[in-house]
């Protein structure tokens, strides 16, 4: 199957209007994801602000904000007059660590099922625990 090539450049940015993430954080997340999973590597040029704004019908300031955010983090670097480039690799947890975390989670899910907790209940408990964890961390700092 041939797909239409909608935009020049290594990746296609998207805008999900149903997402609860703000538009600029959606772009931040997509670019970070592309770097983490190797669709973007060091030296790759990102599409221009104008092209992303025109392609997705989004505010150019939103694109700028996303690029700036990632520049501050050191993931992107802008070279005046030439564009914005990927400046570093990103490594998440190693595949081994990820596999170990997944195994631990599967054990826990089996335990939850035994205790009578369905998928919906698991999600609610998970969201609630994360919220409390975040609040506790914020209060502790």
């Amino acid at each position, binding site marked *: 199957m041939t797909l239409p090539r909608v935009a020049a450049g290594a990746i296609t940015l998207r805008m999900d209007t149903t997402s609860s993430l703000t538009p600029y954080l959606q772009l931040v997340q997509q670019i970070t994801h592309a770097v983490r999973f190797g669709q973007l590597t060091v030296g790759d040029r990102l599409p221009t602000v104008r092209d992303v704004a025109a392609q997705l019908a989004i*505010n150019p300031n939103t694109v700028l904000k996303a690029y700036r955010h990632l520049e501050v983090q050191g993931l992107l670097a802008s070279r005046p007059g030439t564009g914005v480039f990927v400046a570093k690799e990103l490594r998440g947890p190693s595949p081994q660590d990820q596999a170990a975390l997944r195994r631990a989670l599967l054990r826990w899910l089996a335990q939850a099922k035994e205790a009578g907790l369905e998928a919906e209940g698991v999600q609610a408990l998970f969201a609630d625990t994360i919220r409390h964890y975040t609040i506790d961390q914020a209060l502790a700092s």
Partner: protein
Amino acid sequence: MNVLEARHLGMRYGRKWALEDLTLDVPGGRIVALVGPNGAGKTTFLQLAMGFAEPSAGTVVAFGLSPRRDAAAFLPRVGYAAQEPALFRRFSVGDLLKMGSRLNHHWDGTMAASRLRRLGIGFDLSVASLSGGMRAQVALVLALAKMPDLLLLDEPMASLDPLARHEFMRLLMAASAEQGLTVILSSHIIGDLRATCDYLVVLTRGRTQLVGDMDEIVGGHQRLVGPLDSLDAIGRVQEIIQAEHSDRQANLLVRIRGPLLDPRWESFPVDLDQIVLAYLSRNAPISDFDTDLKAEAAS
């Protein structure tokens, strides 16, 4: 820096105030969504900002210029397009371009022509033969060809289908990136505005209800659901915009003013539609009620 400043701006038609005591600063380089129900005063405000009429009260200036007193300096810097663009129906698209270049001192005809080509709008087409979406795009291309610093768009997409709205927005966003202009866009359709506009003004009955940065506004509101008996405690920390409740549970739309520490309360993100709706319904019925009370007291 503010591009446009309105101070106690008002417009009265007969005994009815279409716009009353509007004070508003529009920062430069933004794409501003001017949102409100029909009759809120959006069109009146934009018309006063263009200098189409003399305000009944207050002032409006753009770039420090009065749209009427300093018209000669003001008009070249501002572009305008309305819902039903005033294009001569028997003209061809090419005629409109020629007319624009003769009537305007600053005119980028090359840019206008290349935009129209990219949109697939032929210069020999007559205005009458264009679809609503194309007509809106032509009106926008012409307004942009003036190379304005400020662009005022009055419900430019009201009569367009979703695809034509999207195409219109793509053109506007590209132009905004290329020309770095300030845009004020009035609309009663909220959906498209979240990702296109970075500043929000909610207007009802000629008054502003909510003004600010789009991300801060959307991120700064939440829906809170929790036990009714602790509603007062929540209200002491958060600003409650809209509240509903059953016997034991309260359902609030709040502007976040502090941390949510009571674990019995759950919070959920809200989208722009819900926020605007909450502000509109907060204000409309209450002022009705007030007016009714005053009328009762007077009789």
